[in-house]
């Protein structure tokens, strides 16, 4: 069983400058990775025993003044060694494309759809990148800080749920 420090060290050695930062806020290990190499890093971490992708979170730092507006946070868990690791990626507003990891972890399929639905991240290579929570007529992305949070949008059909019921 490996410990977290040696895994992080290994990642830093192997990926060099792609690992932008590594720290432990509140005791949780966080790796910040460059957008182009995130898939390689995650693939490597999966081989190191992180067999569970718990969730993919999005952050809209519109008012946070960070170097890019958006962040993606992958929460990993290793069942056997009971280790947790977060991988963070900064995503610029101008190009929100991130490579998909839905082929590495099945759970990434819906998690990426949710991140697309709520924030507008585009996961290149995702097999079915459509909205998962909001209805398909929804315009915009609800969890972005510049979306008026109380603005509802009417749905006119049930095509999300039963495509066969909608004849158009």
């Amino acid at each position, binding site marked *: 069983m490996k410990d977290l420090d040696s895994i992080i060290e290994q990642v830093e050695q192997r990926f060099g400058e792609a690992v932008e930062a590594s720290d432990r806020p509140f005791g949780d290990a966080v790796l910040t990775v460059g957008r182009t190499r995130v898939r390689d890093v995650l693939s490597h971490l999966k081989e190191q025993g992180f067999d569970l992708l718990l969730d993919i979170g999005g952050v809209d730092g519109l008012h946070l003044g960070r170097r890019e507006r958006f962040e993606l946070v992958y929460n990993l868990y290793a069942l056997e060694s009971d280790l947790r690791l977060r991988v963070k990626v900064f995503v610029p507003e101008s190009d929100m494309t991130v490579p998909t990891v839905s082929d590495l972890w099945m759970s990434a399929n819906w998690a990426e759809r949710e991140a697309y639905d709520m924030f507008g991240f585009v996961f290149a290579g995702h097999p079915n990148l459509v909205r998962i*929570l*909001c*209805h398909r007529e929804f315009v915009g992305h609800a969890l972005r800080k510049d979306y008026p949070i109380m603005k*509802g*949008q*009417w*749905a006119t059909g049930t095509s999300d*749920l039963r495509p066969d019921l909608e004849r158009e």
Partner: protein
Amino acid sequence: MGVKGIPVTKHETGLITTRLDEVIRWGRKNSLWPLPFGTACCAIEFMGAVSSVFDISRFGAELVRFSPRQSDLLLVAGTINYKLGPVLKRIYDQMCEPRYVISMGACACSGGFYDNYATIQGIDQIIPVDVFIPGCPPRPDAVLDAVVKLQEMIDKEPQRRPRQPERERERPR
């Protein structure tokens, strides 16, 4: 003499006569078959209202049907979001006249505390509602109260007349 609430005339032959409207009205109000459209915790309270302690069958509304074709009372219990709106509308449209709607709980009545992009701020924006029940969630007593209120309403309404003539006649039969 006679059934409570219905004017009857007793004849010497043993027959009783009354008005057809009155009999239909009496039957309607005492045999509401609810369709629970339960999406949240209000549905659990409705289960409490149906089961033995509160016993909604004392008011004739215990025959819960999960088909809009077989029910006359749509009981919307829970949060309705925009994605579910067309589904609720379709269920309502599939019900036969006469049909009644009870909006149960804060969420169905007004969106409750979900004042956000996902939640419809009151189902009366989609379908007509006869009785609103406040509460989060309402106690089963409140459900019984709503059923009684609805029965009083049915008692007063003119019979053998579609409740929404303008809408119903537009649709080809």
